[in-house]
């Protein structure tokens, strides 16, 4: 809050604001270690393995904020709202920001950035020297409880998660660091915003997941649970359904992202 107020009140120009922020904001999220584990895909065909080994990796402690994203669009003009190619982001891209370089009152600097496409999230990650986590990585990290590595029986976490699902999307999001950290020291995997993953459109089903003829492999009706590993994890179904509904240029009012990195330092990017 105190971060944003003086800027709004003095009415600095967009340019001055951008340079003021640039001093402190590149990508500032700290990375935490997620130890190696296995991910059991929620939905899979008979050819897919039931358990996928996941190597240890580093994950941002919090989702990417509006301040982070402002630094990114300042450095990369082609990702500004007015300049972005329609191929890479739909018309709602950053619509809640006041201007190209001014997040404004609906997007506090410390709150997670939302209304960003997968293309934009990926470009951000590359700029920050990181990458998006895969579905397997994201789900492995999100399986932790508040105080234990396996959150399946963490009643407090489940309660917070379902309470969040029951609340409508807020007009203004809380600080990205405001949520209780989990066992690995990561905040907001549940209960703040949905998050893009790198392979959002392939993790669940192969081929065209939205075709009318592949109903049996899609997330509809009873069919939604035909090949599911744990049909009682409704929240996991919701994440899977959300990912399946998206195209890479889509943006929504509750969808943001965070970055990951391999444990060994990266020397080149793809």
């Amino acid at each position, binding site marked *: 809050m105190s971060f944003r107020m003086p800027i709004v009140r003095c009415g600095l120009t967009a340019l001055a604001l951008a340079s003021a922020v640039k001093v402190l904001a590149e990508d500032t999220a700290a990375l935490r270690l997620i130890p190696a584990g296995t991910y059991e895909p929620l939905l899979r065909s008979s050819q897919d393995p039931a358990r996928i080994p996941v190597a240890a990796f580093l994950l941002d402690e919090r989702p990417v904020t509006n301040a982070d994203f402002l630094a990114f669009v300042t450095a990369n003009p082609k990702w500004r709202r007015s300049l972005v190619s329609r191929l890479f982001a739909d018309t*709602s891209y950053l619509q809640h920001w006041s201007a190209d370089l001014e997040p404004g009152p609906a997007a506090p600097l410390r709150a997670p950035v939302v209304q960003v496409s997968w293309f934009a999230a990926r470009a951000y990650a590359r700029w920050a020297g990181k990458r998006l986590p895969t579905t397997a990585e994201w789900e492995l990290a999100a399986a932790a409880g508040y105080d234990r590595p396996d959150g399946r029986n963490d009643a407090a976490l*489940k*309660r917070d998660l*379902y*309470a969040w*699902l*029951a*609340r*409508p*999307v807020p007009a203004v999001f809380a600080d990205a660091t405001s949520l209780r950290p989990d066992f690995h020291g990561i905040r907001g995997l549940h209960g703040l915003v*949905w998050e893009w993953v790198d392979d959002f459109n392939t993790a669940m089903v192969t081929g065209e997941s*939205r*075709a*009318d*003829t592949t*109903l049996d492999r*899609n*997330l*509809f*009706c*009873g069919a*939604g*649970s035909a090949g599911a590993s744990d049909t*009682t994890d*409704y929240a996991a*179904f*919701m994440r*899977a*359904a*959300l990912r*399946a*509904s*998206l*195209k890479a240029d*889509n*943006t*929504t*009012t*509750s*969808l943001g992202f965070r970055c990951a990195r391999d444990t060994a330092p990266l020397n080149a990017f793809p």
Partner: protein
Amino acid sequence: MNLEVREVVGHLADGVEYTFWTFGGTVPGSFIRIREGDVVEFHLNNHPSSKLPHNIDLHGVTGPGGGAASTFTAPGHSSQFTFQALNPGLFVYHCATAPVPMHIGNGMYGMILVEPKDGLPKVDKEYYVMQGEFYTTGKYGEEGMQSFDMAKAIDERPPYIVFNGAVGSLVGDKALGAKVGETVRIYFGVGGPNMTSSFHVIGEIFDKVYPEAGLSLANHNLQTTLVPAGGACVVEFKVDVPGTFVLVDHSLTRAFNKGALGMLKVTGAANRVIYSGKEIDAIYLGAQADAGSDSAKREAELKAKIAAEIKSNPAIAGLTKEMQIEKGKQVYMGLCFACHQPDGNGLPNIFPPLAKSDFLLADRDRAVRIVLKGLVGPLTVNGKKFDSAMPPQEAALTDQQVADVLTYIFNTWGNSGEAFTTDQVKAIRNQTH
């Protein structure tokens, strides 16, 4: 046609809030009416403020998923598909996005009527009613914002089974209405997600039932009709006498304890040949219940202790009367309104009024005694004689609830009076009768 999906916060019962996922902003969703043979261009618009993707499976559509596959729509997006209505009937539609039980359980269902080519017979009144369950974390009546309880859903243990998305959505001034001599048609469906309904209207016999909503064949003179989850029926009946007819799921704890209850109010002249009204009334009282268990007494004592603490703080004390009125309203709407009516005016010759009742306002202790111990025998309220019986409520209500409901009736409908305290109630509860 356009249908908008919106996730909205609304009332599930008095004091109970819930985030409903809706087709068109209401539970059930907008009633869609088309005719056999119509070609429909259907747009499903998912509001930008939605958290989740949604779709629609119309049971009246022939094609994969009833449209579900073609309408899977991310928040802030819109999908289109076109279908031709091949089969006449009344069909349920619902969201079919995983986890389906949660999408339906949060209110995502409605109905589409495909009228036969030459239409349906004319009736005087048509109504749209759907039953569905809600799996809340809190138990029935627990106040505040409730969220969906996955474990209860999987065990099929809903705290709420209601008509049209809320307890009381069809009672009081929201009751259905008709005039004596009119023919009423109800399009009744069950959204579920899990429970079937034994649909019944107390005091009526269905002249016609189109079982399972197939419109070519009607059954006649039925009492209760079974409606499957994800199914519907059409019932028709002529109302011959005035009065309040109660719609229920005849699996009756659902009506009595979970909310599956609605009302049809019929006005017009009485017909004593068809229904005489009450001819004889004699009193019969079985043994009355014990004056509360030990634990209830202990609870009341603790509450009295708390009340005393609060009373000593003037800032809080000012607020407590208002709060008592609010809580008392909930007790009233749960327990008293069926007899004394939501407007407190009672029913002529049977249930005396509480609104501006001279009898009530004359004696506060007597009022406490009536609520606790009941009342039998003749009395005069506002110049009108009543000679009936009111059942004792002392087993059902805590001292606090008695104090609250009395504070409510003493400060509503033009009545005014001081708040009641639990001490007052306790003193009278402990009197031997």
